[in-house]
Every structure is written in C-alpha cells, then in structure tokens.
C-alpha cells in the first residue's frame, strides 16, 4: 500500500491554535464522521484540491518553517479530515522529519484501535475533539456511535503521559448545552482524565 498522503491543504504560521509554538497544519482527506458544523466540510468534498504527496516530499515542503519549529517548540499538526485514517503515512513522516519537530494529531478518535495503536509511542501529541460523551448526542451530531472513541480514549489515558494529549469538549449549538458539556467533562474524569487535560470551548458557526 502506498504511504503517500492524500492531502487537502497546508496552512502555515498558526499560532497557539494547534499546540505549542508556531505550527503548520496539514489537512488530510477522508473522515468517517458527517458533522454539520465541520469547518472543513467544503474542503473535504472538493476532490479537485486533493494532492498525493510522499512523507519525504512533505517534509521538504514544510521545512521552510524549520526555524520557527525549532525555536518556538512548534511543529506539524495533522488534521483534516481524520488524520488517523492515514496513520501509516504519519508514521513514515515521523521517521524522516527532524526529531525537533513536534507532531500533533487533531483527531476525533473514531477509528479502529489498530489505526491508533502504532502512534501511541510517545512521538505524537493528540488534540482530541470528543464532540460529546453522551452516545445519543454524539450520534445525532456525527452520524456514528462513540463506543470506539471511548475505548481509544481509555488506551490513550493508559499509555500516554499527561503532556501528550488534551481532550476538547465543545459546546455544539442546537446539539448540546452547558449541562451536556459539564456531564461530558464528568464522564471524562471518571475514566481518569484530569481536569487540566480537558478543555471546553464553543463551536463558532460560520455562515
């Protein structure tokens, strides 16, 4: 199987949105969810934008920002889309990129565990958008069950140190409310995830 990325876009010079320092977001194609407020909904549907690029070529393309990554503790964030669908390519990328680059993965975690497991080696940090812990709210918003998400979360909690992940709980207009968000946070804490690793925020709908 080719390890080339199916990539939608590269967004440089991001500050304090995808982890520490100055980062570059690499938006990857493909996602199992169907979220109505997906910020990249149009991007995900536009196959004309799709570009296939090898991990080595991607490193070369991103290397222009090496000085920022090195000096600000930044690096590359894979998002999309669901980047864990291209876990093999991400692993290959990590082998060929400078080790000083932090690699973040922005994910919903709604993938089979075998896609996630190879990336639980401490090289990657995870920014997890959990949507909601309540199954009915989750399914209403994404179209899928969240059983796998919760299982994957438990594995991340077991295997990764606290500084390697953050769980984001959004307030989703028309789908959840403050009480739902509070309840999701409690359910995360019951798994063992600590408050400092949980971030609540609000989806801003762009018309």
């Amino acid at each position, binding site marked *: 199987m080719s390890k080339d990325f199916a990539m939608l876009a590269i967004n440089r010079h991001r500050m304090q949105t995808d982890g520490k320092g100055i980062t570059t977001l690499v938006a990857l194609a493909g996602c199992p969810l169907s979220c109505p407020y997906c910020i990249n909904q149009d991007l995900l549907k536009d196959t004309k934008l799709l570009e296939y690029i090898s991990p080595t070529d991607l*490193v070369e393309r991103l*290397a222009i920002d090496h000085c920022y990554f090195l000096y600000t503790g930044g690096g590359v964030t894979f998002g999309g889309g669901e980047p864990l669908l291209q876990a093999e390519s991400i692993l290959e990328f990590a082998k060929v990129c400078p080790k000083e680059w932090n690699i973040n993965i922005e994910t919903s975690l709604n993938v089979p565990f075998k896609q996630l497991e190879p990336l639980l080696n401490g090289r990657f940090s995870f920014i997890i958008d959990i949507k909601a812990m309540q199954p009915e709210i989750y399914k209403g918003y994404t179209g899928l069950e969240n059983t796998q998400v919760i299982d994957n979360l438990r594995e991340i909690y077991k295997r990764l140190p606290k500084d390697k992940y953050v769980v984001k709980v959004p307030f989703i207009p028309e789908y959840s409310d403050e009480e739902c968000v509070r309840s999701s946070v409690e359910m995360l804490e019951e798994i063992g995830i600590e408050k400092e690793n949980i971030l609540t925020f609000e989806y801003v709908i762009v018309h």
Partner: protein
Amino acid sequence: MKKSREELDRLHKEKCRELKKVRAQIAADLGVDLKQRECTYEGYCSGTCPKCKSEEMMLNLAIMKRQMESADMKRRVATAGITTAAALSLTGCNATTTTTLEGDVEVVPTVEELSGDVEILPSPEVEDIQGGIAYIESESSSEEIVEGMLVAPETEEWELAGDIVILEETEEEKGNE
C-alpha cells in the same frame, strides 16, 4: 460571518509583524543580520512574501551550518580518543551506529535520518565512513569535490577519509526529476 478581505488583510499583516519579531529573535541567537526593514507594502497581504521567505531561508541555512559545526566538533572530540563511547551522537541527528572499529565509530546515516536538516537531499547510502560531516557542493554529475579531494560517484566505494557525505543535487539531476 466569514471574514471580509479587509479583515483578513489586517489579520495577515498582524501575523506578519509577529513572525518578523520571532525571526529577529532567532537571528539574534544565530548571529545573523537579516537586514530587516519596515514593510511599506500597501496592497492586500497574504501573511507572507518573498522578503519574509528569504529571511526564513537565511535562518534555516544558519541553523544547518551551526548544527554541522557542532557535529564536526563532536567528531573531532571522538576521534581524538577523548571518549571511548560506542555510540557517537551527532547533535540533532538520528544517526545509526554500526560496528566499532578500533575505538572509532562508524556512523551510517541516511540523509533522511539527519535531524535538523532543512533540505532532504538525495544521497546514496554511505558506507565505511568514519567521522564527521562534510558539506559538498557538486558542480557536475560526474564529480564531487570534498575539501580538495576528488571522488568519483561511479565507484561503489566512497573513498573518503573521516567524512560523512551530504550531497546536493546537481542542476542536471534536478532536471531529471
């Protein structure tokens, strides 16, 4: 509401100013003079431009130079027999050690494994090399010159003493891609 062109322009200019400050700090640490000047461009700003890009490239080059100098220093220390450690760890490099030969260390990295390099340079696997790093600029596809020594790339053995080779693509090779 989607951002207007004016708002995007303002945000991009703001981002550019922040990045410029960061570059100035990096340049100060590296001892590089970027010759920064105030941007007088009045048109729509996308957040970056050829001037910004040239500063980034200068900084990346300075970083690469510093890491190579640091690695070379480590090589000198190692081959001077001051350390008998089995592994030579080049600063910022993910070099793989092979065998130990009379106290010297054979390091056989592929270019992709060298951390901190800005460019991923095409390079053959380098075998039987001892020591540090030399940067080579090749002037033709048939010859590479390393500090006065001529090395023929057609031969399977790279007859270099004490250097790991990083090759730069020739214009011909670039054209063949």
